[in-house]
């Protein structure tokens, strides 16, 4: 059939650039390989020139793919399946990019884009290691290009293309029987509402920059083994590893911040497999950085460094496999669906894992190592111990995250026990103790050997200060987390000491050890931030408190509840005050009548003692775009020392509680009185100006706004401002609601006869929300800690870059 109106050119260009990027990166990989293997300098140079041209072409085509996809989404070309599936016309412009990386194809694209950027930098800055390092990166680009290919190869699907047409993806749909189907698709399926959050604009690019950058230390590790210039290469890898750890850490925690702000599991970290999969490579990368530092100064731990740098990247690939193969389907809340590319994803892991391990094993004996033992009072010894503990904790997390994989391989049916988080936390609290102590003390140790007097003199004051602070916290902090017994509570208190010790000792080291030379203090700053992160995690988790216990008189005990049941949700009826711990809460209003698919609920909190008052606006999408049901977003009130955090857990069933009233249309003139059950209204003004919170018409071509005075029987005076918004020839009416009068007014049209308005008097149904609320103490310490830690990483990176 000849289809009408399809805009095929951008898609064809897109396909073309995918193929160019595949071929170009393949040429680059081979040419760089040859450049390493050639003996003659002239050959080396000519291979390198070819490789650079090929890789530049790869960079150009990857960027072209990216901009073509942005163009398709921006232009709402819904004949493309990716555009239809992930975007819609009413999205705010800032979410165009979120659409781009909301599905698997787009995130692979983001990954390969960052590889291209990093490769571009390495072509200039790689110096003598350019060829071996770029061989690895070019080869990774080949693999990623195949992920975007979307062709069938001997009956097997290779990759998934973001440029596939809707009718190619699903030819069986009846829509494609008509030649002019393009004009019939008016809108797209839209972006998942949970992703319509500003964190989703910045979290994925940062996380993927972190993901992509882990290949650099890996490639240096391979380059070292390959060229047999082990240590020399690794020293050059240090700033890259620091960059990678800083950015990956930031990206992971941005995801945590997103989860905290827009998901409703009541926290920032749930030990979900998807979270673990990105944390583990970070932990291993940090191990590698520490052993590399030990090597730089003493010559110890080079083998371990090579191994860590290889493993951290393999674990990145493994996490890609875990999250995209659908294997986590029953265990994770937010893994991608099965893409039908499992074999390809597995090969992606193996094609790096096997050669890297063979190379490592083959060269193991040749990697220089020092036979003499490290002294127990030396810095390098404890650096190694710390790395080992961190590495074992990473293995522990990997093991339990991989249960679904083991089930699959061995046909078992194991799953994590009753308390998933506790499985991890009981180990991590011990790891926290060890790491807190090590990060506090190790900087005060010298390489090779430290005298007892020196150590005691330097570390005495920080130790005493930390002891005092942490004892004060333990006594007055009110940390009584005894859900898992006294042993665990004691471990938390010890961990708090270790974390405070880490904070204090590292802050003071900047003066005691560095004499205030802030330029050299990157490590201390990073550890200071890390200590704050630990303090924030420990206090916010152990003192997190549900405050929405069901205390309302309306809960009828049915007898099914036993005492242990968590009655953690409270139902609020609109306008009725309820008690919630030390607050009086009141569900005052909502935005149900505005027509916005996102409904806000105004929940008023009043402190019973202090009289302080504030409003929270948790919101929810209801039956949005075919996603039946409720998708809630929390809201929180931030104090310096705590957050009050609340979200909607249940609403009246919209079917049962349907607003059966209809709009009654009338055509009126300015100043004319229109009566309704409990008062009257007059249209005062027609203009393009209005003042309404949370309505954004920036993307609109024009707006017509009415100013209507609504006078109630009780002679109360209200303002209603219904709008008519024109966007690209479509007019959308946005009604306004006068809650006090249970009244909604909309603007239909402005006609020569007058102004056509619709008036709806709502049936006053019982309106209620069920919500859950928490207090999170000291959560800000965590966020500040993250920022400080990343700054520390980048400071160190900067100094090492200059030093190289």
């Amino acid at each position, binding site marked *: 059939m000849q289809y009408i109106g399809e805009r095929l050119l951008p898609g064809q260009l897109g396909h073309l650039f995918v193929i160019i990027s595949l071929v170009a990166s393949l040429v680059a990989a081979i040419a760089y390989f040859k450049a390493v293997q050639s003996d003659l300098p002239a050959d080396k140079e000519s291979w390198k020139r070819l490789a650079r041209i090929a890789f530049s072409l790869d960079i150009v085509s990857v960027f072209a793919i990216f901009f073509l996809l942005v163009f398709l989404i921006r232009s709402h070309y819904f004949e493309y399946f990716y555009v239809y599936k992930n975007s819609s016309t009413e999205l705010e412009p800032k979410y165009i990019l979120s659409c781009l990386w909301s599905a698997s194809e787009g995130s692979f694209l983001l990954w390969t884009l960052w590889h291209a950027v990093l490769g571009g930098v390495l072509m200039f800055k790689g110096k003598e290691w350019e060829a071996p390092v770029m061989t690895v990166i070019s080869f990774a680009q080949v693999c990623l290009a195949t992920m975007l290919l979307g062709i069938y190869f001997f009956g097997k699907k290779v990759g998934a293309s973001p440029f596939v047409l809707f009718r190619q993806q699903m030819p069986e749909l009846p*829509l494609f029987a008509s030649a002019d189907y393009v004009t019939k698709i008016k809108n797209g399926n839209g972006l998942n509402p949970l992703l319509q959050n500003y964190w989703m604009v910045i979290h994925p690019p940062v996380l993927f920059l972190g993901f992509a950058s882990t290949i650099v230390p890996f490639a240096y590790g391979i380059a070292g083994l390959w060229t047999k210039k082990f240590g020399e290469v690794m020293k050059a890898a240090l700033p890259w590893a620091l960059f990678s750890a800083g950015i990956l850490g930031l990206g992971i925690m941005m995801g945590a911040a997103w989860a905290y702000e827009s998901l409703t599991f009541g926290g920032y970290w749930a030990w979900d497999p998807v979270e673990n999969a990105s944390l583990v490579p970070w932990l291993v990368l940090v191990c590698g950085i520490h052993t590399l530092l030990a090597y730089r100064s003493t010559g110890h731990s080079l083998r371990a460094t090579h191994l860590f740098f290889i493993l951290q990247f393999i674990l990145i690939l493994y996490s890609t496999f875990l999250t995209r193969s659908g294997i986590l389907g029953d265990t994770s809340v937010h893994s991608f669906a099965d893409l039908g590319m499992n074999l390809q994803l597995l090969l992606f892991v193996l094609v790096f894992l096997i050669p890297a391990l063979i190379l490592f094993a083959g060269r193991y004996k040749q990697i220089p190592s020092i036979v003499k033992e490290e002294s127990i009072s030396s810095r390098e010894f404890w650096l190694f111990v710390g790395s080992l503990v961190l590495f074992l904790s990473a293995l522990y997390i990997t093991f339990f995250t991989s249960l679904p994989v083991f089930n699959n391989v061995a046909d078992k049916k194991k799953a*994590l026990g009753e308390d998933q988080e506790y499985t991890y936390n009981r180990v991590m609290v011990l790891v926290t103790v060890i790491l807190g102590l090590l990060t506090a003390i190790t900087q005060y140790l010298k390489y090779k050997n430290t005298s007892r007097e020196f150590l005691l003199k330097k570390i005495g004051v920080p130790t005493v200060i930390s002891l005092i602070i942490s004892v004060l916290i333990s006594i007055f902090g009110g940390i009584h987390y005894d859900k898992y017994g006294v042993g665990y509570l004691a471990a938390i208190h010890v961990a708090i000491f270790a974390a405070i010790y880490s904070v204090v000792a590292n802050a003071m080291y900047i003066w005691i050890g560095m004499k205030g030379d802030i330029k050299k203090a990157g490590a201390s700053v990073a550890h200071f931030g890390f200590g704050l992160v630990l303090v924030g995690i420990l206090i916010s988790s152990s003192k997190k408190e549900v405050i929405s216990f069901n205390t309302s008189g309306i809960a009828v005990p049915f007898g099914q509840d036993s005492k242990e049941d968590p009655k953690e949700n409270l139902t609020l009826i609109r306008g009725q005050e309820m008690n919630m711990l030390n607050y009086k809460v009141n569900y005052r209003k909502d935005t149900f009548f505005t027509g916005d698919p996102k409904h806000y609920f105004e929940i008023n909190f009043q402190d019973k003692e202090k009289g302080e008052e504030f409003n929270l606006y948790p919101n929810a999408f209801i039956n949005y775009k075919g996603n039946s049901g409720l998708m809630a977003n929390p809201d929180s009130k931030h104090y310096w020392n705590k957050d009050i955090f609340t979200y909607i857990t249940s609403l009246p069933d919209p079917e049962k509680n349907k607003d059966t009233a209809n709009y009654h249309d009338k055509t009126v003139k300015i100043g004319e009185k229109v009566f309704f059950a409990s008062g009257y209204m007059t249209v005062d003004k027609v203009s393009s100006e209005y003042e309404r919170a949370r309505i954004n018409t920036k993307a609109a071509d024009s707006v017509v706004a009415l100013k209507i005075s609504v006078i109630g029987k009780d002679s109360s005076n209200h303002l209603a401002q219904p709008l008519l918004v024109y966007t690209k020839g479509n007019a959308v009416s946005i009604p306004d609601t006068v809650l006090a009068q249970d009244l909604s007014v909309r603007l239909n049209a402005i006609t020569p006869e007058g102004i056509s308005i619709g008036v709806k008097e709502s049936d006053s149904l019982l309106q209620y929300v069920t919500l859950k609320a928490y207090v999170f103490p000291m959560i800000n310490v965590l966020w500040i800690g993250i920022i400080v830690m990343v700054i520390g990483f980048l400071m160190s990176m900067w100094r090492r870059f200059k030093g190289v």
Partner: protein
Amino acid sequence: MKKTHILILVLIAAAVGYMIMTMGSLSTYESIASAKQKQGKFVHVIAKLDKSQPIEYDAIKNPNYLSFVAVDSLGNSAKVIYHSPKPPELENTERVVLKGKMEGEVFECKDILLKCPSKYKDDPRNVQKSLNKNTQQ
């Protein structure tokens, strides 16, 4: 032997020992029938919502009580009680992963993981549904 080697061995032994210890507390995936055999043991059950039976939930009376009937692929069914609000998409899920314990004939559920068709947008049936909306305007 070097100190580091001894340390590595000790730490690894401790870690492995700990893991083996923890393995005992792991849960398993069960069918409803086998879960009934393992009374009081925390298990995972993959099941479907029995749509012919009513879902009992009234947020006004008690927002922390939900009950429904689940049926597994072998056709066995059990009443499920969950002490939290009703997951909004419960009625539309194809599959649920129930985590909890069997207490007599009742499954005391601690956590429900929904596997909603809307999460698999590439399913042609769902695409058709969303198309119906987006082509009518």
